[in-house]
């Protein structure tokens, strides 16, 4: 272990040289908002909610993928960062067809929690209303692209933890969609093991079991990390 000293929000903090800013902040109870990050799987730095300001750099850096360096001075929150977090969250709402009132994840949704935390009362941008499908071909689960926020946590869980690589992202730009196999209906996928990890990884109500209805979806995202840790122990 190579212990270095860094400065977060004016406080001197000791950290391990290989750690990311996010890990150090979480260890020291400094709040960083995240959406595409999930413990146990790799980071992609895509949601841009964890952006922090680093002294000497005019660019904002994602806390989840940036490693700490000796004497780094980090600001985790200020007006600029808060403003951008708000816009990001608003854009996520406007991008697809989110309707909390009829959503299975209502009350257990990370996007909803984020919106409340940032005190967003309304979305200032026009909703895009894209034409999204709902895949109900799987015997147990449903994939509703209307609610997907493209965090790709399901993709990474399926690839890295389950090892099935059933999910991936097709297309590009605002037309990206999560696909299973060769864009085959989920139920006909040759790779899906029906393990249900993607369901727990999904921060919103995009993947859910068929047997539930509005507000009933309760997830256990922590189980992914537990699983990864247990495997490391090789029990």
């Amino acid at each position, binding site marked *: 272990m190579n212990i270095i000293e860094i400065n977060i929000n004016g406080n001197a903090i000791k950290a391990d040289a290989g750690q990311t800013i996010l890990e150090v902040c979480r260890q020291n109870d400094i709040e960083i908002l995240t959406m595409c990050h999930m413990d146990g799987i790799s980071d992609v*730095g895509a949601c841009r909610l964890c952006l922090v300001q680093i002294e000497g750099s005019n660019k904002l850096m994602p806390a989840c993928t940036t490693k700490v360096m000796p004497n780094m001075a980090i600001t985790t929150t200020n007006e600029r960062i808060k403003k951008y977090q708000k816009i990001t969250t608003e854009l996520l709402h406007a991008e697809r067809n989110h309707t909390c009132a009829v959503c299975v994840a209502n009350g257990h949704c990370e996007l909803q929690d984020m919106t409340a935390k940032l005190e967003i009362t309304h979305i200032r941008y026009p909703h895009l209303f894209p034409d999204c499908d709902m895949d109900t071909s799987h015997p147990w689960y449903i994939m509703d692209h209307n609610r997907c926020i493209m965090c790709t946590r399901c993709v990474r869980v399926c690839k890295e933890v389950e090892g099935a690589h059933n999910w991936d992202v097709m297309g590009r*730009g605002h037309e990206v969609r999560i696909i299973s196999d060769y864009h085959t209906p989920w139920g006909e996928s040759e790779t899906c093991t029906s393990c249900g990890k993607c369901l727990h990884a999904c921060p919103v109500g995009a993947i859910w079991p068929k047997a539930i209805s509005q507000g009933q979806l309760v997830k256990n995202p922590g189980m992914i990390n537990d699983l990864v840790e247990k495997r490391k122990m090789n029990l």
Partner: protein
Amino acid sequence: MNRQELNNFIEKEKEKLAEKGSKAQIRVCCGAGCLSSGAEELMNSLKEEIKAGNIDAEIIPTGCMGPCNQGPLVKFDPGNTIYQKLETGDVAPLLNSHLLEKTPVTEKLLFADSRENPSLNADEDPYFKKQLRIALKDCGHLDPEKIEDYLLLNGYQALDKALFAMAPEDVISEIKQSRLRGRGGAGYPTGLKWESVYRYVNDQKYVICNGDEGDPGAFMDRSLLEGNPHRILEGMALAAYAIGASKGFAYIRGEYPLAIKRFETAIKQARKLGLLGKNILGSEFHFDVEVRIGAGAFVCGEETALIASIEGKKGNPRPRPPYPAEAGLWGKPTLINNVETYAAIAPIINNGGEWYSEIGTAKSAGTKVFALAGKINNAGLIEVPMGTTLREVVYDIGGGIQGGGKFKAAQTGGPSGGCIPEEHLDVKMDYESLVNLGSIMGSGGLIVMDESSDMVDVARYFMEFCMDESCGKCVPCRVGTKMMHDLLQKICQDNATRIDLERLEELAEYVKETSLCGLGSSAPNPLLSTLRHFREEYENRVRETSPKHNVVD
């Protein structure tokens, strides 16, 4: 082949050339522009006529000569006389008059339709006089499919010099001294980049040539790759020697089949002469190059996306650091430079870094190739010293606005750049000055617009481009560009309110600051720069917002 054998080979070629004596050389421009205006048929009929008339002349197909708008072009050497807009019917009288009767055909000379006294020697025409061709020097002169032509023009001499007279550190310091900066757009000092890759110790390093010229309105890289592929190859080999790499990749756009073909030919020829492969010229240096074909994604011009694409993946950029210099292709230290940057390497090694650093301005040394297009008379490929003013480029070289219209703006840097309005026509074009005006140098596309251009629509056009080309990974770029495009569309359709304009400005700043890669963070540039210089066009098109409460409180 080792060094000695190659020298013998060159000597033999020189003898062959001397035997030809003063035989007339007819160079036919086979750049993409001229090809599409009929250069191939023209060349065929030239061949036939020469055969039929038993004329002692040699026909050489070349890369782009520059003034694409005037094509097809044919150059007669010795004499450096360029004829323009030729049709097959012109061939016989032209050969007869120019070669046999020794009287030039004035009405077909280059720029005969726009200048009173078109020059017989093309270099005396203002179009070429104002230029300084270093990267483009032999482009449009040699046959790009013949390595002999390149060797006769001092080709691969820089590589020879580096391998046998310079240590890798010397090459790097020469590049540093030249003050050359990345020509792909960002303008990062090339020497520093090389040095940082050099410093990472690894048994495998890579050199990549970024030929994924995706900017709409740019065709410099294409012309260089098509016109003088060996120069690029030599630049890559020099870079590989300097940083200690043994493998190179040239990533070329799939839309440029001719460039791919010529580059592949060049690689084969170089391998044959021992200029690529194991123990190059008998030295300890091994290096080989492979071509990778891009598949139509603008974002692959971003270095981390390009690396992903070479690895056979989707071109999704990843956060930096780590920079490719540390962990690039397959996690190994990787050097990525643009085509035009590599084109400048050999002349720098041959003539010394100091020579190059004296050209241009204090902060931007050397020359820059621009692809001049839009509503301009002499559209084409030009190369000027850094610091040449926009006015000189547009009026002296470009020949002014087409149809005698009024200059409104010049767009540089493509979808990552901005517009320069008329009041800044005297801006000295270098990296910093353009950034100060809210534009960028970019890779060198320069589109001239006249009064008829609608600047809001121009901003919308570029936003649409970025929206389509966004990889969709990070939120600001994926949703932000779409949202900005929709808002711009709304303004173009005269449906927008003042609130929309405010939202647009806020989004522009947000996308610029928070996007993952350069595509996103530069996507708002055309919007911001048109807002800055042509704000009234936006203001005139938005309505006031809804009436508020009728009692003033």
